[in-house]
């Protein structure tokens, strides 16, 4: 079982790249520990900026650094980063096309019992709504590293959401990665699952279980929520009876909404959108919350069977 978190994976690749690239700057808001970026701050103190508990300042300063040629990675809890500093993200980053990657750590319900202030269940919707902002939700550590490496190659704004705990491996070192191209993890004739982030390992297991039960099921890892990879979705959805989206997010404005938008326009299909509900969530660890709201392997399998009237 993998124990390396996606945040550690990000720190590792930034450490490696920063050796040769003095323009890489990491900015934190009393969040270096929770972002696993303390090794970066210690190794490259001159490429690290601490702004204190001030998320608006975090994003504004990042934009200013980027406007002067720096390649900036600003890391703060997804909940604060995407709501407290929303206007800075809109104006200083997205609208101004500054070379900033916003890294939302402990995304979704990672903080479990810390409650609604600490959940980020609106970040897909909020960040995708900004013209000029790209939104990525990598699943495992390998995909996370490839994504960060790819983002270092371009100069456009992006938001990356990762979770707190280690995600089970979906890929391996030699995985193929293409920016803005979703990964097809399996093809099926009856059902297509579309998942992102923390939900991908659960969806992968659900796919395997459904296939064993004779329900031919495929899976897309739609890590690129924006720009959404409509081409891959339409290819895979063409012949199935049912599409099921799975996301660690509120029902509105995220993976389900975006998939519905594409399908209803080009390929109307029966669609089930699994997500967290639009209500105050129960208290518990992230795994307890997933289970309670049916966002785990069992929940996905059940939802598919119910939609196909098998139970």
């Amino acid at each position: 079982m993998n124990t390396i978190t996606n945040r550690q994976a990000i720190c590792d690749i930034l450490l490696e790249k920063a050796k040769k690239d003095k323009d890489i700057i990491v900015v934190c808001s009393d969040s270096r520990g929770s972002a696993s970026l303390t090794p970066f701050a210690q190794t490259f103190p001159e490429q690290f900026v601490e702004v204190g508990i001030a998320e608006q300042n975090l994003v504004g300063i990042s934009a200013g650094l980027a406007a002067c040629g720096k390649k900036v990675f600003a890391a703060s809890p997804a909940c604060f980063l995407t709501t407290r500093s929303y206007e800075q993200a809109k104006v200083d980053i997205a609208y101004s096309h500054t070379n900033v990657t916003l890294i939302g750590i402990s995304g979704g319900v990672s903080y479990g019992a810390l409650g609604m202030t600490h959940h980020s269940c609106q970040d897909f919707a909020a960040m995708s709504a900004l013209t000029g902002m790209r939104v990525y939700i990598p699943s495992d550590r390998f995909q996370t590293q490839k994504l960060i490496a790819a983002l270092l190659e371009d100069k456009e704004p992006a938001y990356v959401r990762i979770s707190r705990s280690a995600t089970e491996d979906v890929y391996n070192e030699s995985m193929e990665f293409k920016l803005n191209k979703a990964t097809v993890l399996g093809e099926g004739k009856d059902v297509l699952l579309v998942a992102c982030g923390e939900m991908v390992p659960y969806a992968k297991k659900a796919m395997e279980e459904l296939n064993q039960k004779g329900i031919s099921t495929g899976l897309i890892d739609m890590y690129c929520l924006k720009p959404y990879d409509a081409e891959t979705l339409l290819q895979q959805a063409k012949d199935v009876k049912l599409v099921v989206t799975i996301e660690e997010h509120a029902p509105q404005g995220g993976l389900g909404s975006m998939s519905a938008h594409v399908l209803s326009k080009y390929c109307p299909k029966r669609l089930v959108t699994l997500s967290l509900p639009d209500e105050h969530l129960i208290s518990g660890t992230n795994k307890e919350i997933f289970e309670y709201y049916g966002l785990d392997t069992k929940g996905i399998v059940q939802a598919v069977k119910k939609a196909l009237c098998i139970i």
Partner: protein
Amino acid sequence: MDKLTRKSYELRRDIIEMIYKSKAGHIGGDLSVIDILTVLYYDVMNICPENFTDDNRDRFLLSKGHCADALFVVLGDQGFFDKQEAIDTFSQYKSKFIGHPNTEVNGIEINSGSLGHGLSVGVGMALAAKMDKKTYRTYVVLGDGEMAEGSNYEAMMAAHQYQLDNLCATIDFNNLQISGTIDEVMSSVSIAEKFASFGWNVIEVEDGNSCKQLLKAYQEAKQCKGKPSVVIAHTVKGKGVSFMENQKAWHHGVMNQEQYKQAVQELEEVLS
């Protein structure tokens, strides 16, 4: 030992139990703020379970909401709910006693947990009192690290603009936040001068873990007319448990059994 001090140490014991059981919570900040909460709830404020629906009750906001653990223990002890239930279920599956103040819990005025909100909300509450010619006072407790949030300074301006002498802020000035000392992370030097320059009445408390000194400060604040008051309480993070004091690692550290026993023993010694 005076009654308030005794109470604050009894409450420390409850906090230690709650945090040990749940393996969650923010022990360092709890132990630095508990004397402030004790003095406010057991003496200064007119808030109790019986008057909590009374429009003229004082208002209390814990802006440094991550120390909900300490507040739950105080509210439970005051009879807002069963204290033992809070201790036993804190941060557990389906519990309403989550890691931050929330209005599902009796005695909480407003949800918090994201830093830098409380002072603005407090300004609104104090302003409403002025509008309705009510005599209640509004108390807001903030962290020193929290003072990096710019919203606080917007609230400070507004409180002065509207001459909110019914508003009293407290800064739990323990010199630490998560990543290190305040000076290492984002210096808040001359916080007293900052408040003063915004037109506030500033009261510094040399030992912010001394109930006696805090009580005096709050009494002084009540007397001040025409402007808001701030009590700058120089506290010790982790106060009362020797190995936690002034250690950044205890911001949200989790105790092992040995540490738990030692913590309880140290508190018992003070109480006996």
